[in-house]
């Protein structure tokens, strides 16, 4: 109940509240994209030669690919040669722990409401913070280290745990997968790495917080999560960006590997700058997220609350390879003004007795377009596969669109697959009923929308759920009445 209250109290701020940027000294790559830039990034990061070779190979593949056009989104194409592929805050010496991080950086995150001070954190959440291209801080490393959990920036993992990185990098999302995944493989600058050893249950939420600060810079981070047999981890991702008139590109890759009996829960609250009311500016969020349930009885669960970005193109997916493995996808995607989202999931059933569940709640307002695109594929040998999908759309106003594109491809007769979808609008009588009990219209909308999205919000860890509810209310402000 207190969650709701908090939303109502916080409803005062109307615009994107993370729209500020900070000037500080940065290390930047020259603008443009070519082999030299990739070498420049690799050298800057003191990478081993295998990784440089891997990047260059990806770059070659990417050069032969073209930007996908099948998604239900329209946007002016971005000139990828006009972007900067590396921008990092200058830090005199690499900080050994959080106390050595530049106080100016810490201040940026304090302003975003994220405390990097371990003592100040009420909840047990370890955070890896990524600003523009690089990871600037990781908290609780020592506590986690005692359990054998590795949680650090990707760059650090390349140096300290090269074997693990080399083994899993690109194993779930190969560089050939798609245009943006190939681009990411070529130019990714940093990201988070996480390894949970056999039989370990990670005692706290692990979290990455992404922030784009620099202008004309693409953010290409990479997250790799490896959950060894019988381990458990819950992972959170948050993101914001300054308000800028030009579009910015975010093309991340997330790979998750789950061993036998392992469970990974990955939650995202995506709040990239969506552009202004006229549709100017905003982030292009072209992200590839995929997990593989490699071992028997493993489970991967994606939860996403998507409120930001001008254009979203994102399909967190599960490859259910292990027998009895489970994939889940819970999503709330809100679009307002001129936002466009084409998002959904893929559940690929390969192992026997695999199960998947999809709950997608789309909310469209203003002049936005919101599409669910999902695939449930049951391969020939995937005996007794089960899927249930529920895809609902809520429309607010008559200038927006809601679209549903479910692909159901079944090649095994023992599969049971069900897909249901509905479209509805917020009823004026619902709002009047709330009004009659003394609830203002904006709050009534927040209440109704949160009720509609409840099944998904319930999947989020408490702290994130509060944040997500606030975001939903904020994003939809002014769209009814």
């Amino acid at each position, binding site marked *: 109940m207190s969650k709701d209250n908090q939303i109502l109290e916080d409803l005062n701020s109307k615009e994107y509240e993370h729209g500020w940027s900070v000037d500080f000294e940065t290390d930047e790559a020259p603008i443009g994209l070519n082999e030299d830039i990739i070498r420049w990034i690799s050298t800057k990061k003191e990478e081993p030669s295998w990784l440089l070779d891997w990047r260059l190979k990806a770059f070659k593949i990417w050069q032969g690919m073209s930007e996908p056009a099948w998604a239900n989104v329209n946007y002016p194409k971005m000139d990828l040669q006009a972007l900067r592929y590396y921008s990092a805050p200058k830090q005199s010496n690499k900080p050994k722990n959080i106390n050595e991080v530049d106080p100016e950086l810490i201040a940026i995150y304090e302003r975003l409401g994220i405390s990097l001070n371990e003592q100040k954190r009420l909840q047990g959440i370890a955070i890896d913070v990524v600003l523009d291209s690089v990871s600037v801080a990781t908290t609780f490393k020592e506590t986690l280290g005692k359990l054998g959990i590795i949680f650090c920036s990707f760059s650090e993992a390349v140096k300290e745990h090269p074997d693990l990185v080399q083994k899993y990098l690109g194993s779930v999302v190969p560089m050939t997968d798609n245009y943006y995944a190939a681009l990411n493989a070529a130019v990714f600058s940093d990201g988070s790495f996480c390894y949970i050893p056999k039989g370990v249950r990670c005692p706290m939420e692990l979290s990455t917080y992404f922030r784009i600060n620099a202008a004309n810079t693409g953010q290409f981070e990479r997250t790799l999560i490896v959950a060894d047999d019988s381990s458990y981890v819950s992972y959170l991702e948050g993101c914001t960006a300054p308000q800028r008139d030009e579009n910015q590109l975010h093309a991340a890759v997330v790979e998750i590997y789950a061993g036998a009996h392992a469970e990974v829960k990955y939650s995202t609250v995506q709040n990239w700058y969506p552009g202004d009311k006229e549709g100017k500016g905003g982030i292009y969020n072209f992200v590839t997220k995929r997990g593989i349930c490699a071992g028997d009885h493993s489970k991967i669960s994606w939860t996403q609350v998507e409120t930001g970005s001008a254009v979203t193109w994102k399909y967190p997916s599960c490859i259910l390879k292990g027998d009895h493995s489970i994939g889940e996808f819970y999503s709330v995607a809100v679009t307002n003004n001129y936002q466009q989202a084409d998002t959904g999931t893929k559940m690929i059933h390969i192992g026997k007795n695999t199960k998947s569940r999809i709950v997608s709640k789309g909310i469209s307002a203003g002049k936005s377009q919101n599409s669910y695109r999902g695939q449930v594929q049951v391969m020939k040998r995937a005996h007794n596969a089960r899927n249930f999908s529920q895809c609902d759309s809520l429309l607010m106003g008559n200038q927006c669109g809601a679209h549903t594109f479910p692909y159901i491809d079944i090649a095994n007769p023992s599969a049971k697959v069900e897909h249901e979808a509905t479209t509805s609008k917020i009823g004026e009588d*619902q709002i009047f009923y709330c009004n009659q009990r003394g609830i203002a219209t904006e709050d009534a909308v927040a209440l109704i929308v949160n009720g509609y999205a409840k099944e998904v919000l319930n999947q989020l860890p408490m702290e994130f759920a509060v944040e997500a509810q606030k975001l939903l209310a904020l994003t939809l402000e002014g769209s009814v009445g």
Partner: protein
Amino acid sequence: MLSIKNLHASIEGTPILRGINLEVKAGEVHAIMGPNGSGKSTLASVLAGREEYEVTEGEVLFQGKELLELSPEDRAREGVFLAFQYPIEIPGVSTTNFLRTALNQVREYRGLEPLDAVKFLSLMKEKMALVEIDQKLLSRSLNEGFSGGEKKRNEIFQMAMLEPVLSILDETDSGLDIDALRIVSNGVNKLKSENTATIVVTHYQRLLDYIVPDFVHVLYKGRIVKSGTKELALELEEKGYDWIKEEVDSTATV
């Protein structure tokens, strides 16, 4: 407390209310009766501020304030409560959650501190007893899958929680069996005080056996055509509405 003067209202250009005059004082119970389509529910809706209705003439003073100039939520916050004829379902929002939001917004308007969870819960327990409502019901989605009786009980429960000055019960008795009717009426009676007033809108006299009115008004063709005491309700029950219709229609043609 409430003073309605020459109230005219229409929907999509069709006049429904054609000059209502009504005075309600604190401590009173008024029953509004009338045949189907006479404008009873419209009157309730206009008082609560439903947007589909356009007020074309007249004024309504509530505790000295121009009621018609207030937004629906401010009318509620001033103390007007409408028990809906067809309570609305809101999926995913529990009654508890809904009421806590409502109560705290009402309190804020009245300059009171919001209730914390503990105080809210104890208040809720106290009011639940009044309408014999189960806590389990209150943690379910608002009105979703409730039976007719449960919905109406929930309306009265909300009324108890929000402590209105003026309660308008719109056909609260429709669809209720005798047991449910008794429970709902008991709730309403217990909530009555010398500082509050109640308007009961109903088609049947049955409810008035339980909620005894001080005044009974008959609405027909958008006007109050007859007023009286509870005996008028009994007469209507016995004779139906036809004699009133005839009376009005004949004078109208003269």
